[in-house]
């Protein structure tokens, strides 16, 4: 098992904010909007340096999505920002008609995705957004795993043409990816090569998968761990190559099992190469208040849960 260490923890939303700061300096076409959550989205520096390229919409997310679509018409690259819950389900139809169907170059950037926003509870813990967004034609869906990767993804999206949904989170998590990485949309990153099981993880679950890989290594299990930061378009070539080798799969996501990364992988396998699969995901339930650690443990999204599902799926191999 390849060794991953970290010296610092940082929230992925700060990766977004710092990516925006860089874009503010390097790309005069980048603009951002926010529905009364500037502090949470970490865009204060971008706004300070480029006040004319920021639009405060107030608590009015539907209008924000429409304005973002309109800004593209004059050649701008808008990043509308809010919490993931209010930037997906609340405004699904606005995104669908004004952005996705109209194929506008809007980069929806949303924080506080999943359970790890913690104490605010289920009203804010969106666990269905990947499913909604990947169902939408034209939409690119990205869920990076740490500060560095979120920053790199934020910057890379400005050069990508078309609608995108960039999902990140609230808590401080280990920084373990290369600060100088080149973020390639749609290209999975092999965290560790292995032969016994394919662990496909996205977002905060990538670090958990690495922890699980170390525990599994002690048990003599050689896990292949792949970071699927882009859920759509899915890197099916990397997925199939890995599963053809390992013959079994565990998918890990801070999201419902219904419609998320796991289902995207299952769809690929069903059509190309059958293999047993286990899901590390929330099982058809809403979240609740608690600390991020408590919630990840209670809802089965921890390294321990990944180990357990891995042992199970290896047992299902014939």
């Amino acid at each position, binding site marked *: 098992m390849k060794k991953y260490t970290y010296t610092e923890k940082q929230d992925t939303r700060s990766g977004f904010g710092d990516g925006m700061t860089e874009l503010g300096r390097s790309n005069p076409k980048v*603009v951002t909007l926010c529905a009364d959550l500037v502090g949470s989205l970490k865009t204060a520096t971008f706004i300070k340096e480029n006040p*004319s*390229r920021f*639009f405060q*919409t*107030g608590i*009015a997310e*539907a*209008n*924000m*999505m*429409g*304005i*973002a*679509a*309109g*800004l*593209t*018409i*004059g*050649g*701008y690259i*808008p990043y509308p920002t809010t919490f993931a819950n209010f930037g997906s389900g609340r405004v699904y*139809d*606005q995104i*669908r*008609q*004004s952005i996705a*169907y*109209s*194929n*506008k170059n809007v980069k929806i950037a949303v924080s506080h995705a999943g359970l790890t926003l913690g104490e605010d509870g289920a009203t804010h813990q969106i666990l269905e957004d990947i499913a909604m967004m990947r169902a939408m034609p034209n939409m690119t869906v990205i869920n990076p795993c740490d500060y560095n990767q979120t920053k790199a993804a934020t910057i890379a999206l400005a050069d990508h043409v078309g609608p995108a949904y960039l999902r990140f989170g609230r808590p401080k998590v280990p920084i373990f990816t290369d600060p100088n990485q080149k973020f390639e949309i749609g290209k999975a990153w092999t965290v560790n090569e292995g032969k016994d099981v394919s662990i496909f993880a996205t977002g905060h679950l990538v670090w958990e998968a690495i922890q699980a890989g170390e525990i599994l290594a002690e048990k003599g299990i050689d896990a292949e761990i792949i970071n699927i930061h882009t859920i759509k378009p899915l890197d099916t070539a990397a997925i199939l190559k890995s599963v053809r080798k390992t013959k079994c799969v565990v998918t890990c996501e801070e999201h419902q099992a219904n419609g998320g990364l796991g289902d995207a992988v299952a769809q690929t396998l069903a059509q190309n190469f059958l293999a047993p699969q286990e899901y590390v995901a929330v099982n058809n339930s809403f979240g609740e208040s608690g600390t991020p650690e408590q919630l990840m443990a209670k809802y089965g999204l921890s390294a321990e849960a990944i180990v357990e599902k891995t042992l199970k799926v290896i047992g299902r191999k014939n």
Partner: protein
Amino acid sequence: MQIKELEDIASQVRRDIVRMVHGCASGHPGGSLGCTDLLVALYFQQMKISNRKGKGGYLSFKMDGLNEDLFFLSNGHISPVFYSVLSRRGYFDPAELATFRKIDSRLQGHPTTHEGLPGIRVASGSLGQGMSVAIGAALSKKLNNDDKNVFVLMGDGEQQEGQVWEAAQFAPHHKVDNLIAIIDLNHQQIDGSTDEVMNNRDLKAKYKAFGWRVMEIANGNDMEEVVKGLRKAKRISGKGQPIMIIMHTEMGAGVDFMMGSHKWHGIAPNDEQLAAALAQLPETIGDY
């Protein structure tokens, strides 16, 4: 262009509308007929649009519309009038109007950029979204130091959508004064009169209270009044406030039996009704 010439074009557009909805036995003639005079006045006289021609001699359409006035149709169901005016203005061959709502057509039931039809800048149909998009386009004009205006048309029934009021708050707050919004006040919607279905009450007072400069066009089916109203709107734009035009129209205007109720909001005439409608609408430029 003289008023009479605009009226002649409007008569042809009205013929197009009833023939298009008859041709596919579906679509929305009522609101289309009511807004014909506005769209003709905008596209043939009041909006500054590029006359540069491209492939096939049609007007070349650029999505960014730099240094052009832009028009957004928020109440996308009145697509027949939009398509007819765009083709008659020269964006594409009027013969294509015959494909309206049919399989493999660029003229979808509701306008879309998806099929690449020149003149369309965003999809609309799901109501309440157009003014937000128009505000975004207006902001991009300001960022580009482009002094042209952005027009957006909404229905009066559409005022029942919450997003409209989110946009209504934003535009005055951010001084989007290159935005000229128009409400087609025909007092009808699918289920009945707006007074019965969901009373809009005093739209003028509402927009005023939100910080808009509000004006009216007392008869949106009188070309001279429409032209006068649009001239005034342009004159008072650029002064720190967005402009709202409350335009009084008659749903179905130009075809007597389609006027005076919500009945013709979303149904097509049969052969006999088509003939009766066409008899009231002189063919001026030539049918497609």
